[in-house]
């Protein structure tokens, strides 16, 4: 029996070793697969887009392309913080319904690029049925800290970014305060 568990463990973490860009949000370190990261830019003025949930900051002009910007703090239900000089926008490329799309995510600060090996990886712990862990790809334990590896496609795709539909269909105000 223990072997079976071990095997399953390996299966779920294999393929996840590699380079990760780490960043911090309210003191916690998170990791993003480096292949998804296109570039890191400083904070620039964002044009807010109406009819979107609070975590959608708006859109920016990335060299002629208009891309959405998401505030990860708000998205994860953490307390909002005014931008500091360390605040960054990480531009990631995720798969949309029709090809890849670029999105910017606002994080407190970018830390480093880490090489995470199999031995440091851990399966996402089971928090019990009530906690949804689909945003989490896995955990990495290094000497002194634990890094949460984000499944960024899930984070950014899991919810429609426009509130209209839920508004017109359900006529209620329940969805509006989704944070």
């Amino acid at each position, binding site marked *: 029996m223990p072997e079976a568990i071990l095997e399953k463990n390996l299966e779920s973490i294999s393929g996840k070793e590699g380079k990760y860009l780490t960043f911090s949000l309210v003191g916690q370190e998170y990791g993003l697969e480096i292949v998804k990261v296109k570039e890191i830019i400083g904070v620039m*003025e964002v*044009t*807010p*887009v*109406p*009819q*979107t*949930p*609070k975590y959608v900051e*708006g*859109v*920016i*002009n990335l*060299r*002629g*392309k*208009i*891309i*959405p910007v998401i505030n990860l703090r708000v998205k994860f239900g953490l307390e909002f913080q005014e931008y500091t000089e360390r605040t960054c926008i990480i531009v990631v490329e995720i798969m*949309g*319904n*029709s090809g890849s*799309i670029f*999105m910017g995510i606002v994080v407190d600060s970018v830390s480093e690029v880490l090489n995470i090996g199999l031995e440091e990886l851990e399966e996402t712990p089971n928090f019990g049925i009530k906690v949804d862990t689909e945003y989490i790809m896995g955990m990495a334990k290094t000497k002194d800290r634990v890094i949460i590896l984000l499944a960024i496609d899930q984070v950014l795709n899991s919810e*429609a*970014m*426009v*509130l*209209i*539909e839920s*508004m*017109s269909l359900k*006529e209620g*105000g329940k969805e*509006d305060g989704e944070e």
Partner: protein
Amino acid sequence: MLEDAELILEFCDEAKEHLDSMDMALLALEGSPEDKETINAVFRPIHTIKGVAGFFNLNAIGQLTHVAEDILVKARDQGVRLRSVIIDILFEVIDVLRKLIEDVRAQVPEGNLCQEVTPEIEQLINRLKLASMDDETKKLGEIMVEQGSVTEEDIEEALEKQEKEKQKIGEVLIKSGKVSTKDVAKAIREQKTQSKDTRKLKPDEGIRVSVEKLDKLVDMVGELVIAQLQVASSDIEDSKLGKNITQLSKITRELQNLTMAMHMLPIRPLFQRMERLVRDLSRKSNKVVKVTVKGEETELDKRVIDSLGDPLVHMLRNAVDHGLEDAQGRQNAGKAEAGNIYLEARHEAGNIVIEVSDDGKGLPIKKICEKALQRGLITNDKEYPREEIINLIFHPGFSTAEKITDISGRGVGMDVVKKKIDSLRGVVTVDSTEGEGTRFNIRLPLTMAIIDGMLVQIGQERYIIPTHSIEESLKPVKEQIITCHNRGKVMRLRDSIIPLIYLNHLLGGSPLEEEKIESEGLVIVVRDGVNRAGFFVDNLIGQQQVVIKSLGEAFKGLMGISGGAILADGRVGLILDAHGLFEYYSLYYKKDNSQCILKSKK
């Protein structure tokens, strides 16, 4: 079963496709009968069909295609003009071939293919042969008669001789001593100039470029324009640099116009398709319809042309089916028997205008009123301008849900037309006089990539309102603004009353005091073809041309925002869409008329 059954069935399928492509090519040929490439496009499928038909011993098909092929070869290699008579017959040939091929398909299971050349087919073949023989350019003989060098009798005599001796008529005449060589030469010269006149100018030579590449080019030029604007809007003290930048601006603008022009195609093929459609429709409904087309050379963005087909089909179908009366009806109304449909394209004030009109019975305004009352679109207690009533036919669901077609005859899919035109950022209006006809007016922007917009300040943000939907802007006085209980505010604008929309609230900006907006803000009167409303904005910044950019997949479904544009300072400004905003506004008010459901950020 036949041994070749499978092969023959395959042939039938292929032939069907070939005939469809011929249909298209033939239509194109109608517009440019001397274009070799187009002739070839008709020729190739017919040649293929002929080959296979011969292989299977399908006589009728074989003969018919053979004659048609002959004509096309003549047109291609000898420059025989494909006149509309010939093209008409070729259309008939296609229809007959379709039928023949269906027959063949039906006969395959029975096991015997018998194809007789029926008298009708024979007649068709003869007509085709005949039509191809007489050339439209005037006969040499006729010209000489006109010039007075010979008499008609002389010509007839010479013609007989010509048949026998297989000589050219000129030679016969000279030989018989009736005319001098000089006269003949003169006549030939005349004939040549005439035939030159009938030939249209050859189109520019061109190369094929994929749309994708073209789009990229347009994108890049768009970027260039932005970059150039950014440079130009910065403070320049160096006068030499300033001059150079002005020069750069000129070049960029030129370049932009040029790239835009590359997307443009004449509307001709589309109009031709429509002519064919009306031709078929009129036959089906047993009405005599004359189509008059104007301005086919008007150039439009290819994407616009592509999506204009559906709306035009709807409008024309309506015009033929319901707009035009039948022969009896027209007689009673004292009109000529043939109904008229006009299709016109033209440039007007930076827009493309397409008009579809007919001289039929017009829209039944009374019935539209009744229907609108029933559906609560209008109320009894108010007088509505006629125009407003007529344009109700574009109201979504107005036609389809209540089956207004059964009662009044008009309005099938008009909301579809409206939607399509909206998506092209155009405006469609209709005008109609009962008993005299109906006129649809479609106003489209010249290009899809760039719009003229009014940059406005709303709260913290700047938005762009497309100029084409703006009627006017004004500073309202207090007395003009009226509060309706629970229904928001309205504004009196001369003799009409329009809803007032506080864009700042609607777009989720910081909810400023309405009073403050009212005293300091401006109202922009906006219309989307059907509705009119006043938008309260803080300030007008100025008019600007912007390149429209999509906000991408993530923001699909936003109402009232059609895209974004990069402003001179590099930031993104959202482009507002009047129609969507109206819809959003009503949704917003339905849901909760006091509380702003939108986030107010920070």
